[in-house]
């Protein structure tokens, strides 16, 4: 629950990346996703990764790098385990590193987009990119729902502890069906109710009204946006050709 609150708070911080138009960040994510896998030179991939990581640092999201680091330590352990014990061959370190360096920049830019863009700006940007209002409306409700479900999950676990039915890790392995039932059934029923109320609230506020274009924020591409996007495009193309 705290993680969701922190994520929401980070979307409203103040940095160069928070002021960038979300369309630029989406464009950046697209460029990194399309060209990144085409770069074969590990050194050039390293430069691309460095660029993406430095953006996170500049956006004040240094902690996220720790999360990414932990993710890749775990993935490396798994990789070594698979190579040594299942495929029964010596680890291919260069192969693994290339794979990691291909994924890292895309992951970093994805996180940058998610953690520096508010719901309002994202929905407005999607509208400017031509997404129909109905779909944006669904995206908005879904994004809000993530925060709600996080809170509901916290309440379910608290309720289980109060009623003395908390199965814990042991219970999860000993009786997984029972554990799943007591967690998922209340959560599902509650989720249906919450979704029902949110749907009613949305209808009453006219969010699904015809002609409602969900312009929740004022967005326009500035010189900074164009310069940043062009510079990145140029850089990625150079890395690709080198």
């Amino acid at each position: 629950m705290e993680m969701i609150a922190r994520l929401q708070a980070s979307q409203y911080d103040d940095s160069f990346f928070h002021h960038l138009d979300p369309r630029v960040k989406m464009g950046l994510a697209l460029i990194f996703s399309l060209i990144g896998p085409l770069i074969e030179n590990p050194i050039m991939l390293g430069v691309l990764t460095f660029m993406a990581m430095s953006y996170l640092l500049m956006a004040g999201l240094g902690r996220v790098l720790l999360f990414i680091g932990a993710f890749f330590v775990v993935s490396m352990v798994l990789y070594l385990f698979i190579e040594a014990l299942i495929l029964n061959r010596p680890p291919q370190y260069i192969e693994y590193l290339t794979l990691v360096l291909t994924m890292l920049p895309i992951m970093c830019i994805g996180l940058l987009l998610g953690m520096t863009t508010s719901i309002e700006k994202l929905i407005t940007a999607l509208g400017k990119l031509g997404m129909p209002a109905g779909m944006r409306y669904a995206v908005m409700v879904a994004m809000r729902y993530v925060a709600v479900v996080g809170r509901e999950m916290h309440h379910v676990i608290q309720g289980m502890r109060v009623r003395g039915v908390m199965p814990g890790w042991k219970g999860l392995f000993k009786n997984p069906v029972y554990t799943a039932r007591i967690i998922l059934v209340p959560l599902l029923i509650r989720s249906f109710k919450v979704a029902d109320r949110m749907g009613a609230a949305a209808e009453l506020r006219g969010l699904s009204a015809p002609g409602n274009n969900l312009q929740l924020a004022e967005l326009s591409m500035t010189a900074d946006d164009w310069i940043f996007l062009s510079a990145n495009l140029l850089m990625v193309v150079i890395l690709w050709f080198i």
Partner: protein
Amino acid sequence: MVHIKLRDVGFRFDSRSTNSLDDITLDVEQGECVLLAGRSGSGKSTLLHVLSGLIPEYYQGHLQGCIRIGKDDVRWQDVPLWQKSASVGTVFQDPRHQFFSARVEQELLLSRFRKESEREDSEQQLNTLLNSLGLQKMRHRLLDTLSSGEQQRVAIGTAISLAPKILVLDEPSANLSADGVTILFQFLQSAKAEGTTIVIAEHRFSWIRELVDKLVVLDRGSIVFKGNAEKLGEQLFCEEFGLRFQPLEESGENEHQEKPSGRNGSSPVLTMNSVGFRHGKKQDWLFNNLQWELHPGEVFAVTGRNGCGKTTLLTLIYGLLKVGKGSVVFTQNDPLKALALQHPDLQLFASTVAEEISDNVAEQGKWLDRFNLVPLKECHPLTLSGGEMQRLVLAAAFCRVAERSDSLLLLDEPTSGMDGYQLRTLAEEIKELRKRGGSVVMATHDSDLIKETNASLMELDRI
């Protein structure tokens, strides 16, 4: 001028065999404040849904009769739902499920700025709205970090952002502290003075009675009384219709009443020594150096404004959270404790109502009967209505502490949305537990419950 005109209105949900509303005939003048009262399940919320327009478009069923709102020549059923929001603003009991943005400012602008052309004069209108609801200081705050009272004010702000002429509120004070209720009252008072018609469904009447022009009592979907709100001061009338009774001369506070003391030289059940708690190392202390003792037979009501830490205090006593500093000491090493939290539907895990209460059949029968749950004993707990679930969670908690006399019962807002009949039943059980030597700590805003149980007050506030 008649603003709302209902003639022989009836409604049956598609999923039910009986009518939820029957022969409702009602006229409401412009600028009038109408209070809908009645037992839980009497049809108050259904009637509000008819007025807001959710019935029959969103909650489908068979609606009959004539409904005219505002213009006399248009049937309300024929107006598209999205257009109705400009005429009727709706506020639900739980504001958390009405939000779509992350921050206060954006949420208030959401309805208003549906179109680019509506952005003109936005800043000035937003400021007026924020000032009228006392939200100016928190305009940039995240909605999830606000207290229930603050969230309720934002919900009202979203409902009135399109300047509707009618305001419909479903138990708006259920989760509000005294301060929150005062702000809500002041807001409704000024809205009424400006000519807004208000229809409000409530169980707690004391705060709104001054504003009410017309009382409408519902029972099993029909209007059984229409008239002056002074009837709420008559005990027989209130008992007949399951309403909360409060004599006119009483203010709703009971600080001056004499409390039966449980401290007859007995050692405390619980001692809090300089207890402090905060949610994170970088957060402010929610409370600090809290020194308090609870003795056998004592009933304490923990009050204070929304977000001051009432629920946190209960969870600290129960042991769900660890104190930041100081200590919580029980006289017995393993006291018999039970905690009933808010959100009853997240605390029910058994397959039947009876099993939820106890494994012991004799105990089941006793508590099913006490909380009027006998006809539902074979039902799955999660198929019950909100009020029934609340009674079930309370029954299970009482059953748990009934085993020993030196037990401790912790209740978190046990009466939100509870009618007079159920409130009196709960109060009787609390008094019974007290007689047996049990102790009760309840986090509550409900002055009716405090008065009925004759509880001592513990005012908790952020330090």
